[in-house]
């Protein structure tokens, strides 16, 4: 071991200590909630910090059936799939048109779409409520899905337009000379090439939709149609004091997000940095 190496080690020890402290701050609440989810009420009062002495797997069933988490789960899935698929399809066609075609007032259209990225949800919901009521879509999952697609289109269009613009034009021209129509160019050439960007968007839109709260709170009032976040908010009001059940609900609800994040974190992190820095 030479001297410079040892010098670096001292700084590294300090760095490691700081990082480990923050590691605990970030991760401890997850650990506490997961272990609380399997305790009974009595044990949680005497033993907050340790693992459960006995795992109460019946909590899963209690949250799922009595706590209506089964219903909320079903609704969340019914909403998230069409939102992710719909937003991405409509964003791709938007991006394709805006990146490659001559369109009257193109700058204005793109500007209006970009505006959507900064419009806060608060401004939308006041009138969206009455708007959906008139269309007969208030208190329906269809209304919720359509509004969420509308909310996602600006970012999707912006993100994919940037991706498509980076592809060499010659590639498309070559395909056109071979007689490929615009639809073929889009589905056979551009979409496969945009694979990683689309993957990133899938993760984004899945997370956003899965976690969306304010919009759902306003649009859905029937308990049988609530998605997980709104269901959770009402659930904690109904079961005040039953922390294990609330913790179980929280664990069940976040499980898919955490699994997706750990499996696909390459796309999440690269997407977030690219998305934030490209603006």
């Amino acid at each position, binding site marked *: 071991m030479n001297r410079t190496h040892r010098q670096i080690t001292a700084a590294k020890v300090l*760095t*490691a200590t700081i990082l480990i402290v923050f590691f605990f701050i970030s991760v401890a*609440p997850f650990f506490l909630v997961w272990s609380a989810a399997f305790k009974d009420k009595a044990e949680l009062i005497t033993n907050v910090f340790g693992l459960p002495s006995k795992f109460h797997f019946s909590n899963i069933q209690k949250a799922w059936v009595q706590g209506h988490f089964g219903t909320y789960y079903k609704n969340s899935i019914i909403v998230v799939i069409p939102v992710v698929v719909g937003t991405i399809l409509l964003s791709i066609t938007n991006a394709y048109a805006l990146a490659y075609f001559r369109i009257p007032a193109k700058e204005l259209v793109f500007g209006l779409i970009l505006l959507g990225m900064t419009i806060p949800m608060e401004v939308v*919901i*006041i009138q969206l409520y009455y708007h959906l009521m008139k269309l007969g879509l208030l208190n329906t999952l269809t209304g919720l899905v359509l*509004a969420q697609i*509308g909310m996602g289109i600006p970012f999707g269009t912006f993100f994919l337009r940037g991706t498509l613009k980076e592809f060499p034009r010659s590639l498309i021209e070559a395909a056109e000379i071979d007689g490929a129509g615009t639809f073929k160019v889009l589905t056979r050439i551009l979409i496969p090439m945009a694979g990683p960007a689309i993957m990133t968007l899938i993760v984004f839109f899945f997370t956003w939709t899965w976690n969306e709260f304010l919009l759902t709170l306003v649009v859905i009032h029937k308990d049988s149609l609530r998605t997980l976040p709104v269901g959770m*908010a009402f659930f904690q009001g109904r079961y005040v004091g039953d922390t294990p059940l*609330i913790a179980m609900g929280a664990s069940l609800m976040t499980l898919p997000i955490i699994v997706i994040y750990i499996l696909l974190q390459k796309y999440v992190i690269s997407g977030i940095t690219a998305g*934030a820095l490209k603006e």
Partner: protein
Amino acid sequence: MLYLLPGLLTYTVFILFPVIQTVILGSMEWNGMGAKKFVGLQNYLELFSDPIFFQSLSNNAVLVLFIMVLPTLLGLFLATIIELNNFTYRKLFEVAFFMPYILSLVVVGVIWRWIYNPAFGVLNQLLNRVGLSSLGRAWLGDSQTALASVGFTGTWVHYGFAMVIFLAGYRKISPSLYDAVALDGGNGWHKFWYVALPSLTNEIMVVSVYLFINSLKTFDLVYVMTKGGPGYATNVLSLYVFKNAFQYNRNGYAAALAVTLMLIIFTITLVVTQVRKRYEQNS
């Protein structure tokens, strides 16, 4: 053109159209049922004499400290010590620090409500363990600590996000620049101050603006943790919009509040975009 139609239509019908209606509603009085009455700028004038509006605005300002300033500084600090020490297990920390950010804020609020609970909460139990039980209190029920407690939860959510962006920024810096500093006898601090900080200006601006807007839009956390209470101690603008529109049936006033919030966000975005443009031209 045909390709643009479906996407543009969905966006216009469900987002743009309601937004325009809200802007118009800002100059009306409407309880949601009867006839709308045009009142000009009256709703906006009322804002200036509404103490709850100013309280909410100042609460949002405190949240800017917790959700923008602290996470940005912490994120920059952590990214820097990881990068300059060439730390090996960085991936592990990157994943762990970022984890709170992907959670639903409702879940985050529920978890932290339990942590702050006065009777059996984690924080008070922890204080008891280390013999500081006198510091224990009803964190969210006490108007002295409620806002800071919500704010700290916001810091917990966002600092990892900031760190990840800064780490990505660090990756673009050429190592030869550090070597030049080392050659001139510079230490780690010099590397940070003369090389890293100027190179990260863009990232710092992006993170700050994004988190600034996030702090202004805070809703889920406050709704779940305190509903704006005790009193109006943690009331924020977007919660006040929600209450006016869906609880007090004052739609016109809610619209004026929402439009004000939107204008603040537009102004900030516009100013920063201009500053960035000028900055990019100079460098």
